[in-house]
């Protein structure tokens, strides 16, 4: 009897990683992609003028590039760091903030007094960073980013931040000496080290997906959304796409967790996942004359004076993303679906951002060349306290043995590309073991 295939849903980095692994192990599979091309969050494109737009990740680690065999066609990212705008002054993040006495003092105080109850993000940040740093910087940013009050967010929001101060200082130092952007806080599955730094594939981030898809093109079905996953007796038995039912041995889904819950029929195990929320975001990529309009690659704006909370001038890290003498600033605006920002047209949104940017960048209006807006209803998972126990349960698995939910959206986790790769690989490996 021929073995039933495993259905993989979504041809982004996670789906393709799973597919490539199954291909190597000679396990039959079919990869269903709803869109007309592969890459998902890892897609990128270049316009006629030479500006590059990356939808999700801007750079990847050299370790991931090495694993996929594309490292020779990547450029090292030489510099990456962040700053915070407070009271009209910019401070390097995080250590520059120590120049502000009240930040340092309250930080020390919180360290000495030990940690109290840390059930909410609010308490977590206050006890780790001290009240001043938490209330003036970390919490406003977390709130703008997630669209929820810090007291309603679970403390696990904080755990996605980089480890110890000593390690961060060491890696920052290594970054300076080696003249390349050593990864700090970008991987949790494997240890960080001075030998792991950011790179950018010459042809864009989608290069990674192209490489993974290289040998399995005939197994990828484009324009094929999965309408239903059929479960019987707590086991996935089939999927339905374009009205056709396909018997399967398992499903590896990269669909956003609540959507997976909606399309899975014949079980109530995923019922509680339907309430998980994502933060919709609008990213306005604004093109300008000149370079170095921001003090550093990222500028955080925690004071609530602007409609946006983060500005990124990626060309300071990766000069090749814009034509020479020009630059692009990405403006991150947290929003809700169908609100004023969400529905505003591209030109108007550009003008709107420009009005505010003019307060930070002198002559911004004269330098402005136009913009390109990207929107996503599912940019970041929001870790609300109200469904924290369900989320923790979901971290362990879907509750259905032969149904995996992987990838950034599938796991409902704030994880970067390399971790997506390792986690997907590990879960797929375990699934293959289970099925054999």
């Amino acid at each position, binding site marked *: 009897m021929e073995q039933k295939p495993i259905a993989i849903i979504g041809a982004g980095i996670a789906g393709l990683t799973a597919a490539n692994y199954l291909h190597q192990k000679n396990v039959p599979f079919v990869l269903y992609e709803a869109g007309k091309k592969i890459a998902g969050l890892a897609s990128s494109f270049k316009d006629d003028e030479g500006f590059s737009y990356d939808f999700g990740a801007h750079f990847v680690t050299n370790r991931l590039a090495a694993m996929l065999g594309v490292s020779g066609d990547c450029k090292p990212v030489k510099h990456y760091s962040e700053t915070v705008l407070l009271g009209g002054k910019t401070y390097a993040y995080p250590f520059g903030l120590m120049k502000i006495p009240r930040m340092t003092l309250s930080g020390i105080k919180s360290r000495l007094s030990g940690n109290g109850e840390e059930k909410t993000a609010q308490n977590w940040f206050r006890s780790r960073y001290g009240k001043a740093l938490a209330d003036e910087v970390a919490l406003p940013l977390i709130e703008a980013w997630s669209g929820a009050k810090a007291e309603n967010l679970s403390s696990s929001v904080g755990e996605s931040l980089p480890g110890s101060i000593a390690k961060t200082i060491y890696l920052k130092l290594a970054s300076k000496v080696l003249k390349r952007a050593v990864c700090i806080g970008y991987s949790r599955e494997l240890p960080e080290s*001075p030998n792991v730094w950011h790179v950018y594939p010459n042809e864009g981030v989608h290069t990674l997906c192209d490489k993974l898809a290289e040998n399995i093109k005939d197994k990828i079905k484009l324009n094929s959304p999965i309408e239903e996953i059929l479960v019987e007796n707590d086991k996935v038995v089939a999927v339905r796409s374009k009205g056709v039912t396909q018997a399967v041995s398992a499903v590896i889904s990269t669909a956003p967790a609540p959507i997976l819950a909606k399309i899975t029929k014949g079980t109530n195990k995923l019922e509680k996942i339907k309430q998980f929320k994502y933060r919709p975001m609008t990213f306005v990529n604004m093109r300008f004359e000149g370079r170095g309009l921001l003090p550093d690659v990222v500028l955080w704006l925690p004071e609530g004076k602007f409609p946006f909370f983060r500005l990124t001038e990626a060309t300071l890290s990766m000069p090749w993303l814009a034509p020479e003498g020009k630059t692009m600033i990405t403006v991150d605006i947290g929003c809700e679906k169908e609100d004023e920002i969400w529905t505003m047209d591209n030109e108007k949104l550009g003008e709107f951002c420009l009005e505010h940017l003019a307060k930070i960048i002198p002559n911004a209006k004269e330098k402005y060349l136009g913009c390109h807006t990207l929107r996503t209803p599912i940019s970041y998972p929001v870790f609300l306290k109200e469904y924290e126990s369900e989320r923790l349960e979901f971290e362990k698995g879907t509750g259905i043995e032969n149904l995996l939910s992987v990838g950034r959206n599938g796991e409902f986790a704030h994880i970067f590309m390399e971790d997506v790769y390792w986690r997907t690989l590990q879960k797929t490996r375990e699934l293959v073991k289970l099925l054999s």
Partner: protein
Amino acid sequence: MENNEFSAYIYNVKQAVKLQASAKKNSLELVSTDCCVCCSDDANVVGIGEDFEYRTSNDVFAAMQCKTCGLVYLNPRPSIAEFERIYPPTYHAFDFSEEEFGFVHKVRSRLEANRLLVLCKKLGDDAKILDVGCGDGFHLRLLRDFGNKNWTLEGLDASEKAVEAANKSGIKVHLGTAENNDLPENTYDLAFLIQTIEHIEKPNEVLPAICRVLKPNGKLVIVTDNTDSLDFKLFKNGYWGGYHFPRHWNLFNRNALTTLAEKSGFKIEKIETVVSPVNWVYSIHNALVDTNAPQFLINQFTLKSTISLGIFTVLDIILQKLGRGALLRATLKKA
């Protein structure tokens, strides 16, 4: 590094020349692989690095460590079609000559001869010895010059050039690989696999093949880089000399080597560590290269730098006494 370790691959290089595509890409063509000892693919990346020594490509390579047996292996690794590129004509295994390496060559020859003779102590007058991957016959010549004159000394190598050179110097060398040759079974009392196993694609096929040509109770001595060593521990993130990116494909600790040997039809007679300064020197060399140190400083850490080789020999002697020397030497007995 030994002058014989490359030669087993000349055959592959020849194939590579035929296969190599005309179009030049920056990335090497890489293929992924599993642990050759336990066939598992459940492994962690332990090191990330480049070809710091020869810069044959600008790829970054990953050294994985098998969670089951501890074998460290290069994954993904260059495909056979890339051999010509990763072993350039300047590769030092080609010319470890007295003229080129002078004093280092002299010292090493004497040390190596002593080490080999200790391993041959119990052999009788009629003993037959085989060196697998013997290259131009460096070790066999040492045995001929310093050992028992009645021994039969033979080598096996896949390189026609190496075989020719060895035969010219009066050493009998067969053309072939361990898995593919015309050597009679149950023939040899002792076989050597010296700093070769780390370059081999499938040690799990090579060891059983060697086992077949040994006499019952015949022995195989393997010498290879030790991943249970202090130099590995300190430099494993990327600069460790033993990685020799991207040319060392399988690197062992005691456990992995023991497991492989037992699976291949051997009993372990002894596993010990041996002193070597090379990985220490190259670990520092690689760190200096990566941090853009001045060339004169980098030059103090190569196979030609007597001072650093001397210092690290002393250090490794101490570590070897503690069972943590830079090389691993296993004496295996045909079961």
